[in-house]
């Protein structure tokens, strides 16, 4: 066993850390997060040029990484910078699906940051379950056409294309389709997200689409893509928590009440100590998940659910605790903490919350 990151991954992490420190001020991130796109395309391109997307893909498809630990390394660092650019939503997840369905030209463009492809699985009801889409795909003479409504499609606005799930009449099971953003019958209704960023409701009306892979057989593919997306989210949350913990400790060292630093009050010391314990446990969960990303689906999903449950539970607790320990200042927009806390809590609402994954783990 060896728990040290490889030299390459350490360098990758350092490089991302330096980029964030020098070129990714939080102020600009917040402005980008509340803009119409919800992120900054220039920053996205820069990250692609630095190889951050390449690190998420295997060599055969134009990347130089692609393992669980590569994904975890990149997203932990992105989390530390509260990076809003949708490397998870418009590159990692969709790029994986496209790579598995032989769309290598598009994958290459994704890796270079030239194209962004969003993913629409969720439909109404706010459910996390993506296994039974009601969106319907019909084959006409010349092409497939889609009808349905997808909600909470993250960062679809400004993407070049979309991948959506649908059922077909000719085969049971789920199928995946690629749709050009400019396709006829596609209407996009963007909205802000509370953690800064953007998502869309997408309506499809006789929208022409291209089938990806085999009709009706997309379940395992989506499941594997979901595992990647979920791992990335967990790693991002870990980065956020590391920063939140550091901010809290710094604050407790400097803020004085009753003539001494907050950090001198034992009631508070124990709470930060508890925070540290929880984050260490979360970190182990992420390591387990990264390690099992290549494992057979059942085993992989158990590790992924264990991680997402842990991150969901611990993330919310850490966010709430850090705000509480800061007092009033933690409630303000001006102070960084609140923005990290918002993202951390919202991670519990993507790709299944803690209860969803607890059940999935229990039932597996």
């Amino acid at each position, binding site marked *: 066993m060896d728990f040290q990151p490889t030299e390459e991954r350490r360098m990758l992490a350092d490089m991302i850390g330096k980029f964030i420190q020098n070129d990714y001020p939080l102020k600009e991130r917040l402005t980008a997060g509340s803009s119409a796109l919800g992120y900054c395309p220039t920053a996205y391109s820069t990250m692609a040029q630095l190889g951050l997307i390449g690190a998420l893909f295997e060599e055969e498809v134009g990347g130089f990484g692609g393992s669980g630990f590569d994904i975890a390394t990149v997203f932990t660092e992105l989390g530390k910078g509260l990076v809003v650019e949708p490397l998870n939503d418009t590159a990692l997840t969709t790029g994986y699906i496209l790579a598995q369905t032989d769309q290598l030209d598009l994958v290459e463009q994704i890796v270079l940051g030239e194209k962004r492809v969003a993913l629409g699985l*969720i439909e109404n*009801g*706010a*459910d*996390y*379950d993506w296994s*039974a889409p009601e969106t319907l795909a019909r084959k006409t003479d010349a092409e497939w056409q889609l009808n349905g409504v997808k*909600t*909470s499609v993250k960062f679809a606005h400004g993407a070049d294309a979309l991948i959506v799930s649908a059922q077909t009449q000719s085969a049971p099971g789920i199928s995946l389709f690629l749709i050009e953003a400019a396709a006829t019958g596609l209407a996009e*209704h*963007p*909205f*802000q*997200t*509370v*953690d800064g960023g953007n*998502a*869309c*409701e997408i309506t499809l009306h006789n929208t022409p689409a291209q089938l990806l892979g085999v009709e009706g057989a997309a379940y395992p593919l989506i499941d594997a893509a979901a595992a990647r997306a979920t791992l990335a989210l967990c790693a991002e949350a870990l980065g956020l928590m590391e920063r939140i913990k550091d901010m809290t400790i710094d604050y407790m060292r400097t803020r*004085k*009440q*009753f*003539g001494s630093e907050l950090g001198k009050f034992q*009631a*508070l010391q124990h709470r930060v100590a508890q925070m540290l314990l929880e984050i260490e446990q979360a970190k182990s969960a992420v390591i387990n998940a990264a390690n099992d990303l290549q494992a057979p689906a059942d085993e992989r999903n158990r590790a992924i659910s264990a991680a997402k449950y842990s991150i969901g539970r611990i993330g*919310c607790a850490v966010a*709430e605790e850090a*705000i*509480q320990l800061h*007092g*009033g200042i*933690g*409630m*303000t*927009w*001006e102070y960084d903490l*609140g*923005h990290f*806390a*918002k993202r951390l*809590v*919202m991670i*519990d*609402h*993507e790709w299944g*919350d803690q*209860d*969803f994954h*607890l*059940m999935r783990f229990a039932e597996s």
Partner: protein
Amino acid sequence: MDLNFTEADQAFRQEVIEFLSVELPADISRRVHADLPVSKEDTEFWHAVLHKRGWLTYNWPKSFGGVGWSPVQQSIFEEECATAGAPRILPFGLKMLAPVLMAFGSKEQQEHWLPRMCDGTDWWCQGYSEPGSGSDLASLKTTAVKQGDHYVINGQKTWTTLGQYANMIFCLVRTNSDTKPQAGISFILVDLATPGIEMRPIRTLDGGQEVNEVFFTDVRVPASNLVGEENKGWTYAKYLLAHERNGIANVGISGQKLARLKRLSLTQKRNGKPLADDPLFAARLARLEIELRNLETTNLRVLDGFSKGAGPGPESSMLKIIGSELEQNFDDLTRRALGRHAQAHTPQVFEPGYNGPQVAPQDMANQSAAYFNKRKVSIYGGSNEIQKNIITKMILGL
């Protein structure tokens, strides 16, 4: 022991319900139910409606124009107001300053300020906290120096809730620096239109604007605005805080949130089934409902003790802790119930003419922001940690 409501209580409840159904405009209750900020106009309007009925001062003693309701009746009133979605009564004047003036103010002060709170002439805000003095309030540094028949105030207050709407602020100021901190504090009333005052907004993490900083530079305040005696302000301040904590059990509001969650759990889906059928969610909801039932009785027990004893005591710290955490837990579970849609931040769906996407159910469009906003309730009014310190000292005697 008899936990049943009397017939008179039941009749009273009916009276409140009827009053609310006639007087409370639907657009206001809709905003309140959706946890959106209530405008200045709507608050003033609602105060006027309650005032006309004589209920604005429902928790004042009869001798000052209160209605003389029992603790049970007061709770019924608060509960029904919350259920109906009535704007909360602004506490700063009516529930905080008023008891202090009644107990420690001069007859002139009582006759001048109390009626103005009721008829809407004054909107009060609370000037206790300072950047360096939050939990350790007694360390406050804003000074008031007596010059003839005026005090001259210099310093800064912060976290001033809804100060942007206020014309008056009550402040704790330092009038003596040569003694132990608590013994050099005075309580003074300041007109915000006085030269030398500047109010600046502080934006909260949810993007809202409800708190402010207030800067005082050579602000001249008539000495007649001092409440009680100079350097006795700490006693009055603590008296006020005990009253502030009183309503904070928020049983009515949590009850309303419980009902809302139950409705929501029937329409939301989890794994293709109604959320209400999800065992983990059902357990979470049950836990909160049990906590609330327990709190209802704890609240009444404590209030009953106050009404038979010497008024609010350290037990109000218990209500503050349990009540604030329960309210936060309801907001937390509401956010969870929204599942994937919790991330949407679309308060603009409440604007007239909105035609964008409707992501979360409409009355839930501001819920995640509200969840983050409500992190404040365990911080303000004396943080929950400070309440525990009070309990440790005053009740446990440790």
